[in-house]
């Protein structure tokens, strides 16, 4: 997918002024955080599970080559095929090749962030294969030709009226004067339309929440059941997964599953957790005859070797997004690519470059809520800071910021000068602002004072107070 991450400031401004989006974000609100809290309160072992989950991922990443080879062996044993892909283009070509070999015209898809990452839908359409998204939210945004605005609730930015409009435009088979006001009615319409697609598709494409090295199984987690129809009905199944999705055993996967839904939607477990291992067995009555798994690198091995390695523990639950004040203010599309929120702000620059996505790590107040709720304890704020450093070092940040930081560093390294500057600065501001007690606007800080007043400094500086109270340097 093409990125507009470089336009984050403009995107964010537009998002803040978009009333419809703001009301959708307000509706989204604290729903998931509250449900998550309730689910965790029912499970006293949650913190211990987080430690265990983190340890499993760390162990797997240290032995990633071994576990991927084991996974491959087991898939091959049951008659499946594994295809290794270094980048998005290789994955797209492989998928097209499989579709063409099976004469596929329609492909059903179960929401996959890797599918979004490699832009598989546009690519297949361009090559005359029709992809049909089957997750309700993903289906809606496909009709609107939009990327997802949240990794687990892709259409969270839309109102039901917008969904109704999309359905009217896309479903001419129904009477144009039908009433489409209730979500129930829209769901039933989508169910009817998609049921036909499920039954006639030639190929089903899914992602994978995890891969299990012990058995060569892929795990898919959904609430709708769409992934199961996608991977049961068509003659050919294609699974696309990035390499960090592998875990050693079913027990390890189980530990992570106890964390996933609780962190994501606050459910104890999603409705359907499916472990699929290879194609239809000779005696089976249903299931695909052909089974392919694509193992995709696409930037993961570079992260494995750098300071962002811990990001590879991410299980894509979305908890960091649900708890992010910046996401809550601007929504997912402002980030300009397929991921969003704190995980997106770390992942996107790593996958498409700091030059393109250098703004994103700045889209954070570093409040730390994301790290607090991350089931895998990924140090997201630390990584955001490191990406800011990278952006600074590569001279990619805007000049006023670079000069400002340079000026700050100059002062901070010269304590005497710093002390003097503070005394003068604080004294002057204090004197000017004494009457009102606050500033409604300040030169060079209009962005800050636009929405709030700056209280004027009162009395001495911190350092003066510190020495007056007998504070000492360590």
């Amino acid at each position: 997918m093409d990125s507009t991450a470089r336009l984050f400031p403009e995107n964010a401004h537009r998002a803040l002024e978009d009333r419809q989006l703001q009301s959708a974000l307000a509706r989204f609100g604290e729903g998931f955080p509250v449900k998550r809290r309730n689910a965790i309160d029912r499970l006293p072992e949650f913190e211990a599970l987080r430690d265990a989950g983190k340890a499993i991922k760390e162990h797997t990443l240290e032995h990633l080559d071994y576990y991927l080879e084991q996974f491959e062996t087991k898939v091959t044993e049951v008659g499946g095929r594994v295809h290794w892909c270094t980048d998005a283009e290789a994955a797209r070509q492989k998928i097209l090749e499989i579709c063409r070999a099976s004469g596929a015209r329609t492909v059903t898809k179960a929401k996959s962030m890797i599918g979004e990452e490699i832009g598989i839908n546009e690519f297949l359409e361009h090559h005359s294969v029709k992809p049909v998204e089957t997750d309700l939210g993903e289906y809606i945004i496909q009709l609107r030709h939009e990327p997802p605005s949240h990794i687990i609730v892709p259409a969270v930015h839309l109102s039901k009226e917008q969904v109704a409009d999309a359905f009217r435009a896309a479903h001419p088979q129904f009477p144009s004067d039908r009433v489409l006001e209730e979500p129930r009615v829209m769901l039933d319409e989508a169910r009817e339309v998609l049921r036909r697609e499920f039954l006639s598709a030639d190929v089903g494409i899914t992602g994978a929440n995890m891969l299990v090295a012990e058995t060569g199984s892929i795990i898919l987690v959904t609430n709708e059941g769409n992934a199961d129809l996608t991977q049961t009905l068509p003659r050919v199944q294609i699974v696309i997964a990035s390499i960090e999705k592998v875990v050693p055993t079913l027990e390890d996967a189980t530990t992570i599953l106890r964390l996933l839904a609780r962190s994501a939607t606050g459910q104890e477990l999603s409705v359907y957790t499916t472990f699929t291992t290879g194609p239809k067995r000779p005696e089976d009555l249903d299931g695909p005859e052909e089974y392919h798994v694509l193992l995709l690198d696409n930037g993961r091995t570079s992260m494995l070797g750098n300071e962002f390695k811990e990001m590879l523990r991410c299980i894509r639950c979305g908890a960091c997004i649900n708890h992010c004040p910046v996401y809550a203010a601007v929504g997912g599309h402002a980030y300009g690519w397929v991921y969003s929120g704190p995980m997106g702000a770390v992942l996107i620059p790593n996958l498409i470059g700091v030059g393109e996505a250098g703004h994103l790590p700045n889209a954070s107040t570093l409040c730390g809520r994301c790290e607090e709720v991350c089931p895998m304890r990924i140090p997201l704020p630390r990584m955001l800071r490191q990406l800011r450093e990278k952006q600074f070092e590569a001279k990619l940040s805007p000049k006023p910021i670079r000069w400002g930081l340079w000026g700050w560093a100059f002062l901070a390294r010269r304590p005497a000068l710093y002390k003097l500057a503070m005394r003068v600065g604080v004294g002057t501001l204090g004197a000017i602002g004494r009457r009102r007690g606050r500033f409604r606007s300040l030169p060079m800080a209009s962005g800050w004072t636009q929405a709030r007043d700056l209280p004027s400094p009162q009395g001495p500086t911190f350092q003066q107070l510190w020495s007056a109270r007998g504070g000492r340097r360590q």
Partner: protein
Amino acid sequence: MSGPRDQVLTAIRSALGRRVLPEQATAALDRRLAQPAANVVPARGRLPLAERIELFVSEAQRVNATTARLPDLQAVPGAVMAYLRQANLPAAVRAATDPLLQAVPWSSEPLLQVAHGRAQGEDVVSVCAAFAGVAETGTLVLVSDAHNPVTLNFLPENHIVVLPTSRIVGAYEEAWQRLRGTLGHRRMPRAVNWITGPSRTADIEQTLLLGAHGPKQLHILLVDADTGR
């Protein structure tokens, strides 16, 4: 030129700053895979049988499944008919041929039509057999094979699942151990389905709706004595 497989594996090893793992290291990892160990198992997944059954029922109901408790398999046809009647559905089901369900005396309900085989698009009600039930979240474990097609779990709008209470385990890990006992280590059927309530979505304005693409109703028949007699 090396292929993509070698490229990815080489890139992984160079990122980890090492070569192919030495044999001792892989032997330890082989053991980890051959003897999978449970990690953290929550206390609520370690209850005695009676409480386990109670927890299973209350967790399943929390996620909108309905349940009925039956003394034995003889009572299954009547319970299925009762379900169809209260839901105002025709007296026809498609049932799996799992050995458990073969012991069900379907002919005791002469008006009930029972078809077998994989589900078709028009099927309204299916009857399946659970391999296990997991008390900690009220989750059903269904396993695919020649008698248990996966389509029965997803295509019909009404999913009736027969679960002998003796198959209710505390935690998911026990279900894995039981499956390994049946199939052997490092082996899986094509599909293992964990099912926790009927299908749902909240993709339109976070309105929770049951019956997205899978069943709208999940009805669990808990059977205390799982022999036909």
